[in-house]
């Protein structure tokens, strides 16, 4: 630490473009020594991109970075380490079969003679210095998520980082683990290290950080001292002004319950709750939006309903024709279909789950329908004309229906997928992030399709991330936070701030766990 007067890190006018999209637009910010800075923003506001430029993953198109007052050129993670900057990414990069220490020293060449014993010793020192809980000789595959995160943090400290960047570190942690992490971070601060923490959980920001920098849609929205702010002000800065999208929304007609979910609980293989006691009702002729921070259980909810995940609780389907009720829980997708339930599902992972990238559009149409008919052979006529119909009606840009979908652009891939799911004449349509990565025109095509389905009496469940869209498209919005429902609101009456607060509401503390904040 050569110059303690200068800030540890200063960004000036940083700009980064990806193609035509501007991910970061003229952003400046400062981190002092011995300070914890929160970077707050919605999904897609450019937080991670900005941090990746400090960590050497991306290189900025414009602007400068200063470390300890001197200009720094950071072209790779290795360069970042030279400046004693380390980043803990959301997706851990660890070798499962290795011990904590082996992972920590992986790739280090200039560490003197190779000695696991010595390395273990140093890891132990770091662990006790900051109050982590970690056994250096434990294998990663035996570890909990929080232990794996600890390994990543120690990895950075082992390399002597003075500036630590953590990307949504609490997204995968229980409240208790979060408290422990925060204690460690405070300890680091007291030792003069600078910490940048990316998050969109307001209560965490308030309990942990000294200053908050807020980003909104790729732009700098301001920096405030934590002591002088509150949740309301931060939410306002984060969500920005309300944007009018002009999605045509009709009043729901003849709504009847179509899908009743009661007490749905999904557990991970490690035994933690991914979904906790979720209950709601999806009605015909209505779009039910699901809002929440990414990874709060949205994916698990839809997959459990679709029969892809084991769950507890009840999923009752009300058949519009016969009026019968069927419990779908514990049935696989084929059994659900055989019950006569017309459930369509547009999954988040389009090419990995919803479609087969190497097959052409016609063959992808058949995924849902190929079993039709008694015969041994496939019938390609109907799928082919369906493919042609979707291509022309949804204006899919493709050389032809025999083009592998892998070669289409993101928006066109999604049109093919949504088109197919709608063609099955569903009574329930679930769509997870259906406009992610799509341009404006394709997005509106999708909104219109969902609205048409709603008008035809389908119960639509829409998982989205843009609050403006959710508010304009949906009739009701269910907000989930850490796997539990934190509220269901009327989309016509609710405000962005209200939903933002529900999204960050610490539902776990309601279960009796102690909150870290005094």
């Amino acid at each position: 630490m050569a110059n303690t007067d200068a800030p540890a890190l200063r960004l000036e006018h940083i700009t980064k473009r990806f193609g035509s999209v501007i991910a970061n637009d003229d952003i400046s910010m400062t981190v002092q020594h011995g300070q914890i800075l929160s970077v707050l923003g919605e999904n897609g506001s450019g937080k991670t991109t900005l941090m990746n430029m400090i960590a050497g993953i991306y290189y900025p198109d414009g602007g400068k970075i200063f470390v300890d007052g001197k200009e720094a050129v950071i072209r790779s993670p290795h360069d970042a380490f030279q400046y004693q900057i380390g980043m803990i990414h959301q997706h851990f990069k660890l070798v499962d079969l290795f011990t904590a220490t082996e992972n920590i020293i992986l790739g280090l060449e200039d560490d003197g003679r190779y000695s696991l014993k010595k390395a273990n010793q140093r890891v132990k020192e770091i662990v006790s210095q900051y109050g982590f809980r970690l056994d250096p000789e434990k294998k990663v595959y035996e570890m909990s998520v929080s232990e794996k995160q600890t390994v990543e943090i120690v990895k950075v400290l082992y390399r002597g980082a003075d500036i630590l960047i953590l990307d949504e570190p609490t997204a995968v942690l229980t409240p208790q683990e979060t408290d422990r992490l925060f204690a460690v971070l405070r300890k680091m601060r007291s030792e003069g290290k600078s910490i940048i923490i990316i998050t969109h959980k307001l209560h965490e920001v308030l309990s942990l950080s000294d200053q908050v920098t807020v980003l909104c849609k790729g732009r700098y929205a301001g920096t405030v001292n934590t002591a002088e702010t509150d949740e309301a002000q931060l939410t306002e800065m984060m969500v920005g002004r309300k944007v009018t999208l002009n999605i045509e929304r009709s009043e729901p007609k003849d709504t009847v319950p179509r899908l009743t979910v009661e007490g749905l609980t999904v557990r991970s293989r490690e035994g933690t709750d991914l979904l906790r006691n979720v209950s709601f009702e999806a009605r015909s002729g209505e779009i039910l939006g699901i809002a929440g921070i990414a990874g709060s259980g949205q994916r698990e909810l839809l997959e459990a309903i679709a029969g892809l995940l084991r769950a507890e609780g009840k999923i009752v389907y009300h058949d519009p024709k016969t009026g019968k009720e069927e419990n779908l829980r514990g049935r696989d997708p084929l059994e659900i279909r055989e019950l006569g339930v017309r459930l369509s599902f547009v999954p988040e992972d389009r090419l990995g789950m919803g479609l087969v990238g190497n097959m052409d559009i016609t063959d992808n149409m058949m995924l849902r329908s190929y079993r039709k008919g008694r015969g041994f052979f496939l019938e390609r006529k109907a799928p082919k004309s369906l493919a042609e119909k979707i291509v022309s009606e949804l204006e899919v840009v493709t050389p032809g229906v025999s083009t592998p979908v892998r070669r289409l652009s993101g928006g066109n891939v999604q049109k093919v997928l949504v088109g197919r799911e709608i063609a099955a004449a569903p009574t329930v349509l679930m769509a997870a992030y259906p406009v992610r990565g799509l341009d404006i025109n394709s997005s509106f095509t999708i909104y219109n399709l969902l609205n048409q389905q709603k008008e035809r009496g389908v119960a639509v469940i829409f998982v989205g991330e843009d609050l403006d869209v959710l508010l304009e498209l949906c009739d009701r919005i269910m907000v989930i936070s850490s796997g539990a429902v934190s509220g269901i609101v009327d989309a016509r009456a609710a405000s962005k701030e209200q939903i933002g607060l529900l999204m960050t509401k610490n539902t776990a503390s309601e279960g009796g766990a102690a909150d870290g904040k005094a």
Partner: protein
Amino acid sequence: MILAGFLQRAIMQGIPLLYGSTGEIITEKSGNLNLGIPGIMYVGGIGGVIGAFLYEQHAGAELNPFLAVMIPLLCSMAGSLLMGLIYSFLTVSLRANQNVTGLALTTFGVGFGNFFGGSLVRLAGSDVPSISLGRTSNYFRTSLPIADRLGWFGQIFLSHSFLAYAAIVIALLTSLILAKTRVGLHLRAVGENPATADAAGISVGKYKYFATCIGSVIAGLGGLYYVMDYANGVWSNDGFGDRGWLAIALVIFAVWRPNLSILGSILFGGLYIVHNYIPGLDVSGQELFKMLPYLVTILFLVAISMRRKREAQPPAHLGLPYFREER
């Protein structure tokens, strides 16, 4: 005394397998499943034969002991190194399918061995009736003089040639390197999770190249040992048989640990010849006994997949290609 003889023969049978499996373990640790090992071992064998043959022809009556060993050794290593390079170039640089490349390499290598084994004499324009490299073989088979004086102990443990001891030393050294050095750690990371290794700044391609080539050279020595020691310098076409595949089986049996492979190779060598030691066994029964190593390997493979013990599994990225995603 029968037992001592049996163990001695079992070790001799085991040494080529040990070379092959050590080489294949190093290769597999980098994530490359090299099914070309049988071909590489043929090339290693014939490489030595060619070197020795040319030297014997050239040198006339007097052989320099040092050259008589070094020339075949270097020729053998050069041959198998070339095979390793072909495999690495195709699978790593040109991203070809590992299984197809490996099998093609085996076809090529076995053909190469048998071709030169059968045609060397004619090609060299020599007038000897067949390849018999007894003189070179004698140098290779030199063992410790004290072995004879130590009874059964000498017969089992001390009667072997330097290549046999080298096999054990190489296996132990490999185990040590894999477990106790930075290079070993990085190599294992490449085979387990190349994306993570790449992110940590380890050059995945370089490790794959080196591991595959070094592994090939070591495996090739197994072929050399077979011709020069086991077969007394007499090359017979297809004489090496299925030992290359047995070496790959041994990799599984040794759960990717060269030090266990030492014991495993003796066991496999024993299983390979045990039919000779069972009284009253007819020829057909002997054939049945020869499947034992493979049967044991399958049972073992099934057992480790059912137990799901993480340390006993194949390297997680074995057989799969790794290319950094283009942005």
